[in-house]
């Protein structure tokens, strides 16, 4: 049953890729591999196929953030400052790439009746999960959001028509929309306080989200939040290739108990949490 469905999806994916763009072919091949509980599509033996290609991911050690109040806020600041994420006076216009929330909100499926004091007090970092099987990419009618060859879910701000189908599709609330121009100002206060010339600001009417700093990771650097977190506490966040068994992140994932957000939805998030 599952195999048949998978084959259909693969076929649908190929049709999609043929119609959309050549680079998607590469990423489609990846979409059926990778980390997760579902059996792989290759062959009828039901064994998971060996993952192929690069798949960037993160491990977030929430305990280290809990023990170091303010660290998560620093990570958010460095990200939002660099990426020209605007601050609007009206909360309904809010744009955020990385933020914190309580455990029951970040992990509604894992939350239970009698939580210990530490868990209840925790503020957990939330960001785009860069799913291996992203519902947003499936929903997008123009290919404006797509999966990169390194597994990162990206946005093409110039192609996005602003239909917000991806926002309805994302089960993690990771996406924001430019309800008004982020380049403007109100009462003399610009929405982007200190404009960073090195990163483009967006125009109104398009969706945006975390890109796992793909522009940095291509140069072999860690994402900004990871760099900032590790300045505070070593190992608070670890970035790396989930498909490389020798990477630091793979070693941590083998040794530590981690959880993902809403794993039952089959999206296969690339962000893992140590609680």
């Amino acid at each position, binding site marked *: 049953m599952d195999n048949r469905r998978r084959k259909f999806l693969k076929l649908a994916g190929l049709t999609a890729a043929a119609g959309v763009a050549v680079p998607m072919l590469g990423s489609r091949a990846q979409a059926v591999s990778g980390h997760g509980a579902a059996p792989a599509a290759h062959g009828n033996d039901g064994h998971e196929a060996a993952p192929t290609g690069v798949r960037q991911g993160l491990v977030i050690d929430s305990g280290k953030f809990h023990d170091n109040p303010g660290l998560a806020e620093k990570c958010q600041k460095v990200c939002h400052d660099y990426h020209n994420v605007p601050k609007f006076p009206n909360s309904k216009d809010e744009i955020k790439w990385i933020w914190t929330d309580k455990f029951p909100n970040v992990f509604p499926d894992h939350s239970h009746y009698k939580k210990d004091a530490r868990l209840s007090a925790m503020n957990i970092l939330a960001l785009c999960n860069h799913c291996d099987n992203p519902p947003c*990419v499936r929903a997008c*009618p123009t290919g*404006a959001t797509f999966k990169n060859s390194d597994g990162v879910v990206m946005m093409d701000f110039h192609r*996005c028509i602003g239909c917000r189908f991806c926002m309805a599709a994302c089960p993690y609330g990771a996406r924001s929309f430019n309800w008004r121009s982020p380049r403007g100002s109100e009462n003399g206060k610009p929405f982007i306080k200190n404009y960073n010339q090195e990163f483009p600001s967006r125009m109104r009417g398009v969706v945006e989200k975390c890109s796992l700093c793909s522009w940095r990771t291509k140069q072999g650097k860690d994402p900004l939040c990871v760099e900032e977190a590790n300045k505070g506490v070593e190992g608070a966040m670890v970035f790396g290739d989930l498909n490389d068994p020798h990477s630091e992140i793979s070693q941590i994932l083998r040794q530590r108990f981690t959880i993902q957000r809403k794993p039952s939805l089959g999206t296969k998030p690339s962000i893992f949490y140590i609680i």
Partner: protein
Amino acid sequence: MVDKVLKGNGLYWGWLTLLLMIMGAGAIAYLVQFNYGLGATGMSRDVTWGIYISQFTFLVGVAAGGLMLVLPYYLHDYKSFGRITLLGEFMAIAAVIMCLMFIIADLGQPMRAMNVILHPSPNSMLFYDMIVLNGYLFLNVLCGFVVLSSEYRGIKYPNWVKPFIYLSIPWAISIHTVTAFLYCGLPGRHFWLTAVLAPRFLASAFAAGPALLLVIALIMKRTANFDVGQTAKDKLVTIIGYAAIINFFLLGCEVFVGYYSNIPGHMHTLDYLFFGLVDHSTGVMHNNLVPFMRASVAMGILGIIMLFIARRQKSDAMLATSCILIFVAFWIDKGLGLVLGGFVPTPMEHIVEYVPTVVELTVTAGVWSTGFFILTLLYKLVVAVKRDSEANLKVS
């Protein structure tokens, strides 16, 4: 033939002028939104679709509802629908045009709308929605006008149009099915993630579409002296009544699954819509849709009961009232509750409520007026042509 829309009484011109004024206000409001961005609406990061997309969803149903008038006439040769089949096809034209306008109004970058064609993405349900909606518009324009112009010339419609008429029947099902698939294929939105969404969409569409048509037919009986006939009306009552009952049956199925399974995700939105839901992180009760949703259920059930009484008593006034009740009930159910409710609670289990702004409501009124404007012109044409051809039949 088209010149017939230029002849009308004071009421006709007064009605068109009123609609034009609302359309003008809507156009101005849209300019405000276009210049400011969609922030001029009440939508937010958490409730990302508002009244535009909910109107779109409801109107796809109205368009699909035309099927209930087309199918008996063409497929079962049900002659009593001779005077209303064309009305059904033309109602579908006006409704699909409104749908397309609501989609454009909802886009953050409307100038890039053609990207959907330039970068076709068959993995997206919106891609198929574009195909089925435009296809349905094309089919109804083609079939409607070919049949009407044949009637104008006093001949039977040509055989080549028959395949298109037959194609339009499953096509009507497809537009509402694909529209339901926009919602019910999204992981993590429990309220929408139900296999009965498409069937329920169709049931409410097959009630709301013909109900609107019957109200308009009763208005035209008084204003244009155009009677669709008692047999057709009685048959429409059966169609509307049973479709409305099936809709409530399916709603009952949703309620059972949600509350008997006792799975929180399946209960949250139903709680929010019918009883109100408390945000556990703030302790605040949210219930701004509760009065609407309760009224919707009450009006729907009352409408169904009155509908059958009206048929027995042959009362046009009661028939019109019951159809309005059913239409409004399903408009609230699908045009408010379904889309807005689906966003509550948010994926992070917060509750954010949505209230449309004046700009948004004015644009909405403008689009509805455009639809009624088109509908009025088309129906004027149908009535004039029908009257001519029937008069010619009597003479000969």
